[in-house]
Each structure stands twice: as structure tokens, then as C-alpha cells.
């Protein structure tokens, strides 16, 4: 069977231009498919990584995100007294009452305004997020009009330099620090003292409460307590779960977009492969006759031509995947539909994307090749030999 494989492979090599063009068509489809799935994967990864499993986010019941949530001070105090909250090194409760609002800032590249998440933080906010590292300057002090920005914001928006001031909520705010939160969503936020932001934005309520669990297993007890307490209109989610839900809508949109484009494109690529394979069969009728005369049966002929088409698909798949994998070096910054705020993330390739893309491209080869291969195998030996 090795020789048969060589036969198929060398036939592809013998028709370099046709093979390249057909494979290029297929690689384009695989590229589109892989890129969009990589984008959705990158988005999910960024948001899921943003959360920590042992952290709990408390928001107003039925609010989809922190932006839509509101927790008044009285309810916040009740949550603060829960026994499930972990105690920090200095004996304080590891809890942060935070405010999340959106403002618009001008982007560096396009000069167009985009929504940016402003997070009012408490003393413990940084301690609750070990993935956030200060890389320049310092964190904002409480009681001052100071802010720190995530690296994604510093790179993508104008005037985010230490010492510069930004004007929003009718006040001037001085940038005192830049922090790097890795591939997480915090990289696309600006942080400042919550007690300064609340009056500035004229908000009477917090948006969310974040705390670390004393014991990871106590989440369920806390959740039941808080959701059955008649004084509270709140719900609790693990932080990881909360951020996974944030990515759902957009990731789904990207996936549906990717699949739709792929289906439309793949029809073209399959037809291309079919034309290539039909012409291969037509050009090699004499060869088919010879092989059959030598004693190769119909099934072997079918297999040889199908193998050729599968190889064609595989070549297209590998090229497309290679091009797609280059997208990993690109960072995308766009608005997350669910939070209406700017979020920057990378294309992300996974093993699942690799094997699905290759399977898909080989599948295109199969669909494009099966009919021509069937035709080749059904030829009459004598008629085929006459073609030589």
C-alpha cells in the first residue's frame, strides 16, 4: 500500500499548479475557521482567567454583569458579616466593595472613543487578585483622585502615562500606576478609590462585592444563606463562573459567525476539489485502465483517488492552520457585547482547534473526492485502456 500512497502523492506533485490552487482554496477556509474559533477561544480564556476559583462575586439578583448591578450600603454590610469570608494577614476581612462604571476614552490608533471599565477599588481589591501586578508607579491611595490603569488600556488609549491627568466625572484624575494583569480582563480596566468614584459618579450604591472564601467548600452554604436572606436581593457566583458567563454571548456570536462563514466558503472549496479530482480522473483514464488490467480491483482504484483528494485536503488544512497559528501574535481589542466595555485579548490555538481544523479539511477532501474516485473505479477496463 506504500506504493499506492506514493502514487497518489506524486500525482499531486506532478500537477503543482492545480494542486497548489486547490489546496490554497481549502487552506483559506481552514484559516477562516481556525482564526474565528481561536478568537472565541482567546476571549473565553481571557475572561475565565480573570476569575479566581476561591473568590466569590456578589451582585444584584438577575443582573447580568457588574455594570448593571447595584448593592446599597446596608446590604453590603450584611454580606460583610458573613462567616465564610477569609481573614487576611492583618486580621481584616478579605472583602472588597467595588463600583464599576463605564466612561469613554479616545483610542490611540483610531482616535475614536471606546468604552472603558472604571473600577472603584477598596483596600483589599489588589490582594484578592494575585494575577494583577503593578509594573510602573504605585497603586492609587485612598481618599485621593488617583488612578492606575491596566496595561491594555495604557497601550491602546491616549494619555495613559504616569503623571498625566484624565478628566471624567467632572474631576481631574492623575495616573499614578500601570498594572499588568496578564491575559485577564483587568488589563482593560482603570482602577481608583471607590469612595472617591461614588460621589464623583453620583452613585449611591456599590456595583459588586468580591471576597475570598475561608474554605472553598463553603461556597454553597454562603450562596444559600445570601439568596434566602429576606433582607437581601443579591446573588453569589464563584468569580470563575461569573467571568465565564461574561464571555458566553460574544464567544457564541464569534463561533456562529465562524461556522456560517466556514460553511459558505467550504462549499466553494469542495467544488474546487471536485473539479480538480474530476479532471485528474479524466486525464488519467489510461492509467486507471492499466492499473485495472494489472489486477488492481475497483476498491483499490477508489482508494487511490480518494487518498489523493484526502491528501489535497490535508495539505490545505496544514497550510491554513499554519497561517491561522500566526494570528496568535495579534492582540485584538474590541467591545464585549455583554459588558459594553473594551476588552483586549489574543487569538488562542488549542489542540482541539488543531484536530478539528485538520479533520474538517480532510472532510472537505473526502466530499470533493468521493464522486470522482467513484467514477474512476466504475470505468470499464477496455474503454479506459483505449484512452491511452
Amino acid at each position, binding site marked *: *500500500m506504500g*506504493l499506492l500512497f*506514493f*502514487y497518489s502523492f*506524486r500525482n499531486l506533485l506532478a500537477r503543482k499548479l492545480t494542486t497548489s490552487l486547490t489546496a490554497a482554496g481549502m487552506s483559506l477556509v481552514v484559516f477562516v475557521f481556525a482564526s474565528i474559533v481561536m478568537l472565541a477561544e482567546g476571549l473565553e480564556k481571557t475572561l475565565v482567567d480573570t476569575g479566581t476559583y476561591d473568590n466569590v462575586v456578589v451582585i444584584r439578583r438577575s443582573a447580568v454583569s457588574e455594570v448593571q448591578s447595584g448593592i446599597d450600603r446596608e446590604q453590603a454590610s450584611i454580606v460583610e458579616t458573613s462567616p465564610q469570608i477569609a481573614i487576611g494577614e492583618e486580621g481584616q476581612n478579605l472583602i472588597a466593595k467595588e463600583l464599576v462604571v463605564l466612561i469613554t476614552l479616545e483610542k490611540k490608533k483610531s482616535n475614536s472613543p471606546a468604552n472603558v471599565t472604571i473600577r472603584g477599588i477598596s483596600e483589599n481589591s489588589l490582594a484578592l487578585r494575585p494575577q494583577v501586578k503593578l509594573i510602573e508607579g504605585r497603586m492609587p491611595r485612598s481618599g485621593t483622585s488617583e488612578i492606575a490603569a491596566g496595561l491594555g488600556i495604557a497601550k491602546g488609549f491616549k494619555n495613559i502615562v504616569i503623571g498625566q491627568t484624565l478628566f471624567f466625572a467632572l474631576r481631574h484624575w492623575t495616573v499614578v500606576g500601570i498594572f499588568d494583569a496578564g491575559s485577564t480582563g483587568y488589563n482593560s480596566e482603570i482602577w481608583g478609590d471607590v469612595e472617591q468614584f461614588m460621589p464623583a459618579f453620583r452613585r449611591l450604591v456599590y456595583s459588586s462585592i468580591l471576597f475570598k472564601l475561608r474554605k472553598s467548600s463553603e461556597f454553597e452554604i454562603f450562596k444559600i444563606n445570601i439568596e434566602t436572606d429576606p433582607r437581601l436581593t443579591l446573588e453569589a457566583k464563584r468569580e470563575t463562573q461569573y467571568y465565564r458567563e461574561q464571555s458566553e454571548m460574544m464567544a457564541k456570536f464569534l463561533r456562529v459567525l465562524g461556522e456560517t462563514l466556514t460553511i459558505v466558503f467550504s462549499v466553494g472549496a469542495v467544488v474546487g476539489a471536485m473539479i480538480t479530482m474530476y479532471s485528474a480522473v479524466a486525464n488519467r483514464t489510461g492509467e486507471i485502465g492499466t492499473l*485495472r*488490467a494489472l489486477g488492481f480491483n475497483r476498491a483499490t482504484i477508489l482508494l487511490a483517488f480518494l487518498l489523493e483528494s484526502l491528501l489535497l485536503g490535508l495539505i490545505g488544512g496544514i497550510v491554513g492552520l499554519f497561517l491561522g497559528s500566526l494570528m496568535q501574535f495579534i492582540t485584538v481589542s474590541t467591545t464585549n457585547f455583554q459588558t459594553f466595555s473594551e476588552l483586549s485579548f489574543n487569538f488562542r490555538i488549542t489542540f482541539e482547534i488543531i484536530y478539528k481544523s485538520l479533520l474538517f479539511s480532510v472532510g472537505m477532501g473526502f466530499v470533493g473526492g468521493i464522486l470522482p474516485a467513484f467514477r474512476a473505479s466504475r470505468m470499464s477496463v477496455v474503454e479506459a*485502456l483505449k484512452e491511452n
Partner: protein
Amino acid sequence: MGPSGSGKSTLLNLIAGLDKPDSGSIIVQGIDISLLLETELAKWRADNIGFIFQFYNLIPVLTAFENVELPLILTRLSKNERKKHVLTALSLVGLDDRMDHYPGQLSGGQQQRVAIARAVVTDPVILVADEPTGDLDRLSARDVLNLMENLSKSIGKTIVMVTHDPRAAKKAGSIMYLDKGVLADVPQTSFQECV
């Protein structure tokens, strides 16, 4: 031998198991091959028949060695055994030094010799040759005919050959004439004149 359209190639195709008769039977070595199924017939061809075609019918993307190896894939021989057989067949036709050449790199005569090596490599019972010198110049045709004569005499291969070429016919042990589908020991007058 016989004039064009007399049915020579059709008869050869029937004997070689490439075609099936509309009626009657074809018995080769005691087996009625007209009764065999498609797959059985393919296997029977692989085991019993070696083909030599007018236009050589080599696979252009395979080397001389691989072309000769092709029919051996259908046998149970190991890779090493296959290699041995191929080298023997190629040296028999005097082309062992050209085994890595592709058909496009060989002359017509050399290609036909590769085709002969491919036909004999499985040690078939019968070699069928359809106009084997039809596409060759005089010298190459002579070489190919000599080679076939040697094969027939030295290793005792039965060769059934269809030809228009009187020089080819001269090498034959017996000649049958075909005209309008009828076989005869002597040629029809018109064809005799032509020969």
C-alpha cells in the same frame, strides 16, 4: 494478424480477461473466465496474465523500478523479495541501470522494455501483447522483438501477440489470422497481399 477492425484486440482482451463475451465461454487453463466475478477476474489477471501494450502504459509519476514493482503489490511478497524480483526483471530487459528513471526520461524502446519487465515480473502464465512494436522505430522494434523471442525461448513464456508487423509475425511459433471476427489458419487473400 488481421486487418484493422477484424477483432484482434477484442479477442486479446477476452483471452486476457479484460472484457467479457456476450455469449459463449473462454476457457484458459481449464478455467472458464467468463464466469468469474469482477474481483475474481482482477485477481485471475494479476496471477496469470502479463500485459504488453502498444503505448507501454507506464505510470508517468512512478520510476521504472516502481512501475515494475506495481503488479507485485498484489502478491504477498515482502518488500525485500519484491525488490529482488524487480531487479531480476529489469536486468532481464537490460535496464537495471535505469531503474530510477521516470518513463518521461526513457526512450520509447526503453519504456517498452520496462513494460516487458513489468509483464514478466510476476511470472505469469501468458504474456499478451497488443501491437508491442506499433509505436517504435525500426531499431527499437527489432530490440523489443528479440527480447520477447528470448523470453519465450529461454524462460518458456507463452506470448499471445496481436500485430500488423510482418517482422513480428516472423518470430511467432504459429500465426492465426482473423477477419471480420472469423479465425483462420491461412490469411484472406486481401490481407495476404497487404502482408
